[in-house]
């Protein structure tokens, strides 16, 4: 295999990081430029060129959809911050688990069932927080691409955080797990404005654009 063919194959592997629609439009052209920029006898992409390709791929993947209103942009940043807060909550739960257990053991000496409940509760919290982080990241990407279902995911996540906060407060969480409560409150305060912004009329138009040139009856019964 010639040096150029080997280099081309490796560049194509890097280009596989880009979205398919972008590759369809630009792959051959980018490849031509990459090969034109390559040095004589080069067989592998350089470190800087590889890093730049991956950075470029991330830029393309994370680019906001055209016509994204300001309210949506702020909401997306809040959801992103929410993902960070959920990650912090997860770390907090792990870090304070021992303290929570001993606080409950002190409050309810000899109550083996309480210890078991706490263990179960903590596992549920770990799983919930991890799921929350993943959901936030998926929702952030989908919100940027203008997917309407992502708004429902964010609203559902907000509902879950609210219920969780209420439950923890009623269980006296402020006493035995103050750090977790603070992290949860931060999350709640980030998701509340995000939800409000995502459901404004301006955001609604972005997520549910008017169908172009489709009459009312076509919209109801579909097109032939």
């Amino acid at each position: 295999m010639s040096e150029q063919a080997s280099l081309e194959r490796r560049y194509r592997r890097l280009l596989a990081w880009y979205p398919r629609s972008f590759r369809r439009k630009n792959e051959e052209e980018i490849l031509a430029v990459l090969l034109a920029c390559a040095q004589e006898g080069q067989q592998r992409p350089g470190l800087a060129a590889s890093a730049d390709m991956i950075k470029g791929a991330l830029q393309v993947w994370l680019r906001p959809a055209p016509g994204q209103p300001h309210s949506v942009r702020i909401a997306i940043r809040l959801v992103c911050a929410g993902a960070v807060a959920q990650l912090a909550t997860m770390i907090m739960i792990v870090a304070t688990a021992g303290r929570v257990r001993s606080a409950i053991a002190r409050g309810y000496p000899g109550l083996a069932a309480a210890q078991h409940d706490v263990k179960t509760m903590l596992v549920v919290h770990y799983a919930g927080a991890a799921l929350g982080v993943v959901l936030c990241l998926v929702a952030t990407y989908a919100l940027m691409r203008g997917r309407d279902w992502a708004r429902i995911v964010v609203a559902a996540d907000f509902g879950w955080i609210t219920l969780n906060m209420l439950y923890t407060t009623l269980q006296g969480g402020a006493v035995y797990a103050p750090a977790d409560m603070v992290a949860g409150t931060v999350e709640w305060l980030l998701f509340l404005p995000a939800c409000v912004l995502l459901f404004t009329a301006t955001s609604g138009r972005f997520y549910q654009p008017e169908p172009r040139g489709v009459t009312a009856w076509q919209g109801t019964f579909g097109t032939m």
Partner: protein
Amino acid sequence: MQEATYLILTALAAGSQHGYGIIVDVSEISGGRVRLRAGTLYAALDRLREDGLIAVDREEIVDNRLRRYYRLTPEGEKRLADEAARLHANAMAAMRRLKPGLATGMA
């Protein structure tokens, strides 16, 4: 406007260019300070096309490789002119406030 975007639009202001030509021109315009790479360039070109600031002028096949030429759209020309005027005004304000000798030396 990001510096890379500004330099890409500037490279296209004199006429249509292909990707490799833009990389070389941007390096010249910036005095060798900015060296665009393919990943950054094509992410920017794709976004600029989507925003309607540039358009494909023509395509050629050279040595069995696709070569696509880009040009500024009227909207792109206006955005570049606005940005250049803004940068010029900022630079002039800075020059007026600098000590006379220093400002002359920089001019």
